[in-house]
């Protein structure tokens, strides 16, 4: 029975694709936290902020995911406006796993019958048709997934419907794109969506004949940018007590927030309808924070780090279990070995060595042929065998030759940079061959490391020394490699978030 359960877990793990993650709710530019949802509604031609609650339910199956959004009775924040908004929409995402290319394609569509009803100061807008299509491509890289998608949709509302007739039709055309990333240290998705409002509306004139109508039609545009972001960060926390066995330690803090911005260009609305000349242009912002989540980490107690320049870096990595030395001495100034660095990068990016490998090993029958190491100098029983094997499988690191890994050989800067850039999958963004990096010692860069060193400089992971040298063939000490790993973590935590959120929204 146990075996069957284990087999089942293994199979599920193998076939479950990587899914789309922290994403802004729905596609109308709204933001939410644990209990509240906010959205700005433009359908009357004026920006009106609605506030209320939203239920989101997500169901995941092997290669698909269903997300249901249910907005119940949102009301305008401005109490002088009478109104309500209810909306129920179910989306389904079908994933096509292209593991041969390390990519996944997600196709999103609306299922069931979406409903939406907006009432504002006595006027009702009732959704009668919703066409929607969204497609994402997810590049699954070892340290992070990067994705981008496009969306197009059309919403058609009946205005003040009564029986089979209505006063008109409101058509909202939606086109946009989204970008995002997801890794152990953070996830962000930013959507930029353009809405074109085309309202054809004739209301019966007050006090006039039955046939007298007033034209309240208008056109307008709105651009919404909304970004949902989660980051993990390490913070040092002092120990207030003196008589304690340790001084202080690190806390991992997870913060999530959604920020949004609407830029609108609408007709100026007067009591008798839209002004034909004057426009109302402006910007509205929304933002919601989730309460942070905190997690204490183990306390490092190395004896030889006090006052060392890399003390903070090493302690951080130790707290995160990236290093798990049991000795009292870290010995920061000796060279880092290839196998230790591979292990550290894999642990730092939380790429867990495939659990199924361990399971399989326990399940292995006695008559089964024992696993064979791809390298003659790394035995399957070696402490870091799984890490090396995973690193090689995922393309993060390569052997010195097809058969030799040289696990305990000292690590050079070029090797370390290459490992980190390959973990991010950025090496393919380097220029076509035949270029030089701007480092003074470009000639010293081994040809296999050139793309990685170029990209590392582009994304700000390394910079030249005082003489603008990258020193690719220098051996990296344990302290220096800790500093590089901490910078790699900062990149995953902060630089990606800035690039996917602030650098998009604030510049558009």
């Amino acid at each position, binding site marked *: 029975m146990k075996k069957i359960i284990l087999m089942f877990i293994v199979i599920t793990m193998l076939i479950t694709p990587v899914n789309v993650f922290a994403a802004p709710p729905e596609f109308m530019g709204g933001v939410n936290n644990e209990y509240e949802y906010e959205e700005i509604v433009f359908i009357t031609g004026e920006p009106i902020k609605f506030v209320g609650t939203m239920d989101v339910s997500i169901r995941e199956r092997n290669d698909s995911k269903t997300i249901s959004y249910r907005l119940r009775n949102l009301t305008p924040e401005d109490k002088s406006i009478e109104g309500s908004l209810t909306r129920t929409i179910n989306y389904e995402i079908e994933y096509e796993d292209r593991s041969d290319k390390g990519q996944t394609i997600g196709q999103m569509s609306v299922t069931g019958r979406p409903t939406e009803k907006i009432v504002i100061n006595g006027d009702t807008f009732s959704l009668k048709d919703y066409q929607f299509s969204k497609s994402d491509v997810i590049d699954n890289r070892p340290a992070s997934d990067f994705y981008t998608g496009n969306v197009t949709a059309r919403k058609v509302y009946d205005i003040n419907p009564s029986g089979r007739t209505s006063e008109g039709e409101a058509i909202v055309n939606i086109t946009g794109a989204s970008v995002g990333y997801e890794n152990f240290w953070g996830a962000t998705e930013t959507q930029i969506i353009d809405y074109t409002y085309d309202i054809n509306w004739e209301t019966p004139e007050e006090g006039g004949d039955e046939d007298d109508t007033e034209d309240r039609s208008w056109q307008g545009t709105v*651009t919404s940018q909304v970004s949902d972001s989660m980051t993990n960060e390490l*913070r*040092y*926390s*002092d120990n207030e007590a003196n008589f304690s066995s340790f001084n202080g330690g690190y*806390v991992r*803090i997870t*913060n999530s927030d959604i*920020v*949004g*911005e609407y*830029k609108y260009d609408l007709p*100026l609305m007067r009591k008798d309808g839209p002004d034909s000349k*004057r426009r109302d*242009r*402006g910007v*509205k*912002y*929304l*933002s919601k*924070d989730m309460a*942070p989540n*905190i997690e204490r980490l183990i306390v490092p107690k190395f004896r030889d780090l006090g006052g060392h320049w890399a003390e903070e870096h090493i302690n951080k990595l130790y707290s995160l279990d990236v290093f798990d030395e049991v000795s009292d001495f870290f010995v920061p100034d000796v060279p880092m070995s290839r196998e230790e660095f591979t292990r550290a990068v894999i642990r730092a990016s939380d790429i867990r060595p495939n659990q199924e490998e361990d399971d399989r090993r326990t399940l292995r029958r006695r008559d089964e042929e024992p696993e064979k190491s791809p390298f003659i100098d790394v035995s399957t029983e070696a402490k870091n065998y799984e890490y090396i094997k995973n690193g090689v499988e995922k393309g993060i690191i390569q052997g010195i030759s097809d058969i030799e890994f040289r696990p305990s050989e000292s690590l050079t800067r070029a090797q370390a940079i290459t490992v980190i850039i390959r973990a991010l999958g950025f090496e393919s*963004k380097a*220029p*076509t*061959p*035949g*270029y*030089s990096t*701007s480092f003074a010692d470009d000639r010293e860069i081994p*040809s*296999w490391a050139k793309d990685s060193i170029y990209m590392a400089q*582009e994304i*700000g992971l390394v*910079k030249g020394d005082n003489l603008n040298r990258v020193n690719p063939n220098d051996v990296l000490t344990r302290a220096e490699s800790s500093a590089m790993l901490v910078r790699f973590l900062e990149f995953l935590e902060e630089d990606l978030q800035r690039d996917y959120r602030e*650098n998009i*929204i*604030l*510049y*558009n």
Partner: protein
Amino acid sequence: MKKTIILILAITLLSSVFAYGDINTAYRQGFVEGYLMESIDGRLEIETYEGEFYSIRIADDAMYTIDSYFVNASNFMPGMEIYADLQGRRVVSVEGYSTSSLGYIPPGSKIRTGRIKNIDRNQLVLELANGEEVTYFTMPGTIALKNGKNVSLDTLYEGDKVKLYFDEIDTDIISRISIEGDSVRIKGLYKAELNFVDRYSDKITISNVQKLSNGKWKDVTHSMTIPYNKDFPLYIGGHEIPYDNLKYYRGKTVYLASKDSFGKDKVERMVIQNQYESTYSDKIEDINWFTGGFELSNNRNINFDEGTIVIKNDRLVDTYALNPNSDVFVVADGRGMESNADIVYVLNEDINNSNIGQSYIYAGRMDRIVEDRLELKDFFVLEENDWQSFDDEKELFFDNDTDIYDLTNNKKLSLEEFYSGNYAVDEDSSYARRRNLKDWHGYIYTDGDRISAIMVQKNMDSLLRQRVTNGLIASAPEEDNLVGWKTKITNARDWSSNKSQWMEKNSNISINLEEALLIKEGKQIEPYELKAGDRIYTVRDDFYSKILIVK
């Protein structure tokens, strides 16, 4: 038999002499280059550039590269140009060539993000996130975007945050600039007592909060919680302290420069008061870069350091943006004669944001108007915030995109109406005398010699009564039944010609926009398009604004 053997031997020897030059050249020179004939499978089938064919065995440990990249033998395609090194009669390495555009990146894919440290015409000095400073160049084709709209490069300020796009890897010529929108502006300067520090959400709670308004600290609220940007260092008395230690300064006075972050205030820079506060509003007489200090007109010496918050045009800049003749509001921290600047707020404002801009404001009598140009006679130019008169003529050009407004008749004019109307006449002609026609006068906003917008009126105003004011629109303009469009300006400063200095007003001032030429992004706008918070530069005659530029 013997003869036969000798014959065979002779033929063999001779044939090798004849053929030597062909089949053995490659082995002799140790390499072969040409076109690959077949996929690599143990042997290299190659046609040399000279047209010879070789089939050479490849060593088991041969190295394969394409454009210096290590590859597998299977990556080689027939037809590819290759170069192979030989040792004896074996190939030990094969290099192929495939890339046609060497060192190519997709246009615009090299990106640099940073803060503009200095602008000098086509040179932008950018401070990157890692503190490095790099000079880049704009070209006439450089595209600039701000708030998603294509704008002119002269909208750039020092202190602006930008994203620069380049088309090639080793170029320093910018192909596109995205400029951060209004979120770059410092919206508020606060003084408060530090209360709580929440390191989990990076927020502080402060009490007795005062905001700098019209040159004075004004009470805002008793307590507020505000997030801070932990990427900027925190200082006290010129010394950087880690945010982890901020909690030890509870009860101390802090100065905060806040920005708008998605609709909410966020502290961008913070400095903790070290000793006692004094404030000055004066002109910088001299700066000593060596000791890091400046002398104000009142002979007061104040030091500055890395922790000093310097704000110019509502943007954070570094101390190098200060210069002698900057008019500043200084919050100094110290005792006795020793004091350090915590905040330096530069009051100066100009028509142009940097020396990229070539905009001028003219006023004068229009002597002649033809289809595409007009001539001003005895005109005035606003120079360093004062009207300077010129006994001269000035030719300025206009086009279909020029905004023309007739203030006397309160109407927009088309190009034809303008040049065919009686706005400039020969005053001595009998036609003009009979009809009592005179030349009209205009206020003109130009980009170089090209008129962007012009407002014409029948009679000339007294320019002596006018003065220049800068500040912020306090609230969106309102249309009053009696006086028409009006608004209020806060944090206003008037230019004093006598002192050659910007003088801070200590209260909001009202201005009327009915007679004003309003300019935003080089175009004339309507009063209702002004928004609260817009930074403005205006020439006004007391209550009446004549020209108002949204900065």
